[in-house]
């Protein structure tokens, strides 16, 4: 488990290094994700411990948004003053984004295959 965690950190570190070196607009962890994917393709799959460690982390992805989310308390005044436009813009644009993405993909792939089995 520690070895798998060290591997994840090493890929994150490599991602950060690439970002700084090449002035990329994407955060280090996202580049690290791409690098790990390349590594997994070359290696033909993750080790058992990497699979378990990743699974545990990903099952608790929600946890990791809690510290940043609690920062909502810093913006109470602005959120209150502009509550109307903010709420409408967030809700409407998210619904539009979800619908546009989901419907586009649904119609483009529908002909090729039937609903995928769960």
């Amino acid at each position, binding site marked *: 488990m520690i070895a798998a965690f060290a591997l994840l950190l090493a890929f994150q570190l490599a991602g950060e290094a690439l970002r700084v070196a090449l002035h990329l607009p994407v955060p280090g962890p996202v580049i690290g994700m791409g690098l790990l994917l390349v590594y997994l393709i070359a290696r033909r799959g993750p080790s058992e411990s990497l699979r378990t460690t990743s699974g545990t982390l990903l099952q608790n992805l929600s946890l990791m948004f809690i*510290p940043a989310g609690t920062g909502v308390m810093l913006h109470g005044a602005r959120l209150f003053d502009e509550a109307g436009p903010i709420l409408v813009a967030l809700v409407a644009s998210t619904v539009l984004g979800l619908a546009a993405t989901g419907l586009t993909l649904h119609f483009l792939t529908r002909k090729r295959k039937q609903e995928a089995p769960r």
Partner: protein
Amino acid sequence: MSPESMTEIWVYLSAQPLLWLTLTLAVYLLALALHRKAKGHPVVNPVLVSVSILVVLLLVTGTPYQRYFDGAQFVHFLLGPTTVALAVPLHAQLKRLLAMGGPLLIALVVGSLTAGLSAYAIGALLGASTPTVISLAPKSVTTPIAMGVAERLGGLASLTAVFVILTGIFGAIFADGILRRLGVKDDASIGFALGLASHGIGTARAFQLSEQTGAFAALAMGLNGLFTAITLPWLLPLLAPLLK
């Protein structure tokens, strides 16, 4: 124990990172238990429930956010390696993802532009202030990218983080209901839409639905982050006339 010594212990502990780290984990476990008790109902979203409890706790105890974050940053840090770990489910679904490459890229462009530009346009037309409008535009992408983009364009990074989290929670709660009502029922489309419109929190929700749904969400989150970081700085100036 006398009230004085209770106060003394509180004053000591509330200044330590340990207290707020422990409370973050405890509140999360409580939120998970509630989520299970509600049979996984999306409204009992673990992020929403945990953040609500913690904000109340911090306000009641008069604890500044910065002191809370001194402890909670250890959890926040895990966001990095966990993002890297998304490569594992992506690899497991690689064949399916590659087979759908064309449709996925088209859905990415359509969805990303719709989500970002509509947020900006609606905020501007309803008269929100300029920093708020700019901070709204990248709200569908993962926090670090959104904050970087907003800051470069004249928004407020920490406000963007709040919009990103609110968008994520909203998408996690309502996305599968909305998409099903529109007739979109396959796990690939639901997952890709969730990850694109609601980044990591949507991806967390997608993993609750199934591993395939989660893999598509993870891919959409990464692609939309990349696409937004590159295109938004060029597109937003075109919409600037909408600002008041």
